[in-house]
């Protein structure tokens, strides 16, 4: 166990280094975008003096290295700065929206796992049957369907005609259903595909033939022996998908008016709100790294042969 603990500490130290580089890259990247934040924020009717005043307030009149030092110094104090667009602390802006995005991503990840793994398993056991082909077709459909289109179709069917679920917003539990289904479509397909190929690999192994030969039931062979061994790549994909979902929720959040971080990010990019863009990218980088760490720790639980030393 102490090995695991040391491993986690090491990973978190490595995370700090990663975050420094993420901070540097995002800092430079937003400043490479064309457009003057002060002008965008001031609006078309502002006078040049007012624009200049905003520039000074945002420290945009200082040279880049100075701006970066300011940024790092406040980061070390845990301060992400003040939003240029709303004049409110960036941390408060992000925290007020993060729960919605995490909820959506978590629900979609759950759906992806709960639907994708059984689908992939069935497809693998009945490989090359008509059932396998139907599942593959469904998977192809899920992967290639644009989120935007699927979302609108779901709204038309389930919100306008059947009126089962709300068309937009996040104010009731049932609000989560349509956006998480929409967001999960791609991941379900992706997880199903990964499960199928990973399972096919495992099902060819000798110990599976042995298990069948022992006369074990199909359920035990498939779930205890095969799936468990096939799980590592599947888990990796799910972990990566969760990260993808955090960032990829932008379109879904827009279609369903879901008040999440993705939309905040887009709004902030379009108004060149540097502090908020930097803050969101950093927090996403953190979350992504933590989820990956969690996945690595889970490997050990699934496969006791993996040691953290």
């Amino acid at each position, binding site marked *: 166990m102490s090995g695991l603990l040391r491993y986690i500490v090491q990973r978190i130290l490595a995370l700090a280094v990663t975050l420094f580089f993420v901070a540097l890259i995002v800092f430079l990247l937003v400043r490479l975008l064309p457009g*003057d934040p002060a002008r965008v924020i*001031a609006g078309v*009717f502002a*006078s*040049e003096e007012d624009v200049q005043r905003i520039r000074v307030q945002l420290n945009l009149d200082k040279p880049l290295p100075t701006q970066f030092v300011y940024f790092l110094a406040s980061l070390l104090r845990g301060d992400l700065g003040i939003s240029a667009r709303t004049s409110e602390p960036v941390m408060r802006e992000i925290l007020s929206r993060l729960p919605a995005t995490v909820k959506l991503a978590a629900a979609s990840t759950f759906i992806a796992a709960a639907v994708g793994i059984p689908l992939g398993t069935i497809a693998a056991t009945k490989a090359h049957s008509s059932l396998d082909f139907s599942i593959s077709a469904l998977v192809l459909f899920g992967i290639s369907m644009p989120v935007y289109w699927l979302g609108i179709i779901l709204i038309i069917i389930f919100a306008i005609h059947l009126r089962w679920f709300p068309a937009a917003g996040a104010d009731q539990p049932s609000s989560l259903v349509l956006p998480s289904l929409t967001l999960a479509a791609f991941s379900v397909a992706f997880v199903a595909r990964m499960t199928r190929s990973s399972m096919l690999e495992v099902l060819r192994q000798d110990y599976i033939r042995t298990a069948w030969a022992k006369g074990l039931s199909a359920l035990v062979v498939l779930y205890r022996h095969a799936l468990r061994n096939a799980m590592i790549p599947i888990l990796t994909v799910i972990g990566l998908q969760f990260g993808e979902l955090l960032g990829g929720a932008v379109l879904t959040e827009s279609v369903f008016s879901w008040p999440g971080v993705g939309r*905040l990010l887009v*709004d902030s990019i379009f108004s060149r709100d540097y502090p908020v863009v930097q803050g969101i990218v950093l927090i996403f980088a953190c979350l992504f790294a933590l989820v990956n760490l969690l996945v690595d720790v889970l490997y050990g639980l699934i496969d006791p042969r993996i040691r953290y030393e």
Partner: protein
Amino acid sequence: MRRILILAVALVLGFAAAYGGSAAPAPTTFRIAIGIDPDTLDPAQTTTTTAANVLDYVVETLTTMDSEGKTQPLLAESWAVSPDGKSVTFTLRKNVRFHDGTPLTAQAVKWNLDRVLDPKVRVPIRAPYIPISRVEVVDPLTVRLVLKDPAAYLVAAMTWTTVGIVSPASVGKFGNTYENIVHPIGTGPYVFGSRVKGERIVLEKFPRYWGKKPFYDRVVVQIVPEATSRESLLLAGQVEMIILPPAADIPALQKNPNVKVLLAKGDRSIFIAINTQRPPFQKKEARQALNYAINKGAIIRSILFGAADPLDAPMPPVLFGYCKTGTYPYNPSKAKSLLAEAGISAGTEVELLTPTGRYLQDFQAAQAIAGYLREAGLRVNVRTMDWPSYIATITKPLPENQTQMHLLGWAPAYLDAHQQMLQFWSTQWPPAGLATTFYKNPRVDELIEAASKEVNPERRKDLYCQASKIIWDEAPWIFLWVQRFPIVYSAKVTNISSLPNEKFYAVYAEPVR
């Protein structure tokens, strides 16, 4: 058994009769879906009309505009402009209270206006109020603005939300600071209730409102960025009103008996700004040719679905100072001959820039315009980019500015020609302002300057009219259209109208009875 049943029915009916009338009714709610999350709820910091529109429920201004765009009293009962035009005195309405119970006084008004002028506060639309040199409290209900120079448009500018009056006592409470108001306490018919960023703003009826009380107990403003989703919400009965539906769906919505479509007249001119200082369009004949080359009527019908009216002056008709100046009827052969006259050979390559999604069907309209210009013999490339990049590109100072033509919309915040004419005033060349055509005519400069200081309304109007005629003839723009502002609402509600500066007016909405 039967007797028990009868008894039960009688009891139920009796209860219903006795208590039905007096049972507390559920609060009535009016739900609106808008497209953008207000960047601020601080009146002084507003930049967008949509945010201002929501704030108007809570915060009131000294003057307001009616549906015709005329300036009307609101918190000020009356006002007087001194004969030299260098001061304006407002008499405040009596017995007006802020939502925190404090009274509206001249002192409170002075505090608000001083705040708008204070460089410490970020006030993007400060320019109209710069002429105010100081604000004087004459007596508890009279406030006088002393001006550096006469500013004839100032009373109209007092209708805009930037100078909305909040309670000075609310600073230091509800998370408000002097620099940033997040919980506005005004005098309006609705009280700011709560806000979930990116999701909703809830407003509650103010029982002690000084004016006519609205019908609905509660107004919920939902933030729905996608036009298609706003439309879905309305069709699913989850909101009562939306603004800006998908333009292509306007005809279908107009046929739908469950909803009503209001294509409200607005003040947003849509035009192609022509760089008048760079090749190939320095000659006015060339620019007139561009105006003759385009069939505006056809574009409005087939691409804007009727949600616009052709411009017939350099400004929309709702502005004070408008006079009908002319038309450039669609005339392709005249366009060709004028281009030849200006020495522009067929096949000349030009670039047309356009934003995407900023104005109604902007990119699609630009494509159609490029098509017409190609018919006139030009080789037109249409290029689009995101808004911040766009603004940066078109506001480069002249020596670095490479633009030839770009599509732009211009909507004055208050309905006076002054803000419109900034587009043609050479003092406003970028980077000082957004006169991105780099148009310069000394006579027009003189007329605009004189009009901004003229106290007599008739003479002022005449000055603008003279300027308009010169501008129309010299055509620094391809004059396109005045965009309408589409509002769609449930057929179950009524009393919904609009203000001509792209605001909806639904404070007194009520169910159809």
